[in-house]
């Protein structure tokens, strides 16, 4: 027998409970990524050479190395320096860091797409750089890149199974445990795959909606072009 429905019903509640952990990790990780990404993007645009180079190097470094190693690094190496983190926290930080680097590129594109004239107009009005950033630049830079950020939210969501490597009881780890208890891996792993597929497809459809909405509303709210 390839597929046992009774077994499916038996394990569904356990998997649903684990999916809460997966979703928690996703949301926390992405919250971190969204903030960190913006900070990195702004640092990267800094006029001070070493700050922007360091930020750029950091982003490149994080993007060029596997998340799994970064998870291990935070979980195993940090304690050597006296920073002991629970597995879940370590995992969330690693995911946030990794996707924060990706998001910083998105923010940067958004920031660079704000016409130079906006900066010049703000200077002409004698606005401080901080106010200019907060009230003029950011509100124009972020909305167009929301769909791209959304795609990284989905990507981060799909990476959460990596937390199973440090024994966080998210979906994948739970599925593996269930599998090892019953010697039936078909159902738990397929269900996990199905869960990710459905959630990703829904998210993708949602992001497309947001994109069409933005395309319609961002056409120039009273500005010139």
């Amino acid at each position, binding site marked *: 027998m390839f597929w046992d429905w009774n077994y499916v019903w038996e394990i569904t509640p356990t998997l649903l409970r684990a999916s809460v952990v997966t979703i928690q990790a996703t949301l926390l990780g992405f919250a971190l990524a969204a903030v960190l990404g913006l900070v990195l993007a702004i640092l990267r645009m800094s006029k001070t050479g070493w700050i922007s180079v360091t930020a750029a190097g950091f982003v490149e470094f994080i993007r060029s190395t596997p998340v799994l190693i970064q998870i291990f690094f935070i979980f195993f190496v940090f304690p050597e320096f006296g920073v002991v983190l629970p597995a879940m926290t370590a995992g969330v930080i690693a995911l946030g860091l990794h996707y924060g680097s990706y998001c910083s590129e998105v923010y940067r594109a958004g920031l660079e797409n704000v016409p130079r004239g906006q900066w010049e107009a703000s200077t002409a009005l004698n606005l401080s750089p901080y106010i200019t950033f907060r009230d003029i630049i950011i509100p124009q830079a972020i909305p167009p890149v929301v769909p791209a950020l959304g795609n990284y939210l989905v990507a981060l969501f799909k990476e959460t199974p*990596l937390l199973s490597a440090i024994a966080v009881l998210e979906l994948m780890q739970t599925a593996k445990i269930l599998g090892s208890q019953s010697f039936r891996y078909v159902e738990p792993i397929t269900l996990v795959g199905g869960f990710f597929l459905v959630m990703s497809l829904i998210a993708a459809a949602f992001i497309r909606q947001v994109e069409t909405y933005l395309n319609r509303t961002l056409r120039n709210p009273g500005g010139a072009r």
Partner: protein
Amino acid sequence: MQLRPLAVCAIVFFTAGLAVSSFAGFREFIPGLLQGAAVTIQITVGGCILAMVMALIAAMAKMYGPLPLRWLAVAYIEVFRGTSALVQLFWLFFVLPHFGILLDPLTVAITALGLNVGAYGAEVVRGAVNAVPRGQWEASVALNMPRALSLRRIILPQAFVAMIPPWGNLFIELLKATALVSLITISDLTFKAQQMNQTTFRTVEIFTIVLVVYLALSVLITVGTRTLETFAARGIARGR
């Protein structure tokens, strides 16, 4: 954008130097890590080749195939983009044996990662083909070329140039994803790192070195694709 490789290289040397100077028994670990790196490279190369083949087939099927084939391609692309690489890896590793299909872990690894990245690659191919100006198709029709010929000789060569940078990124994604194979018992770089960590407890040094090795491999891929890009762009200028 000369700054990018520059910054990365600086970091490679800095951290590598740091690790070496703080890690007296460094040499002992070289053979093990090299073995691991060799496996990582092997899976990366195998995965990249499979990914490119799958991407081309899936993209062509999705765009020009007859209906059932088109659905199959869409299903492949959506399923492999919609679930994560690790789930796919585990699925092939744990579930296939239940159906009586026994593959060795290395084959499973290359298959899973190749199929995963191939699904993303299919969209890259499709985007690049669609970005070729419509006039190129029309000129081909005016010269009475059959569609397959225009695709092969006119459209794909132009799309190819536009595809190189995104493929470079996908290759790096694939390299990073190879770390997952350590979770299905393959002794790649990550697996070796874990193993040595458990026997020597030189946690800081081992993971630092491993990070730097991955970074170096990524930079290698970037440099490779950049070079290819310059070569391919020669003689082909867009715009008129």
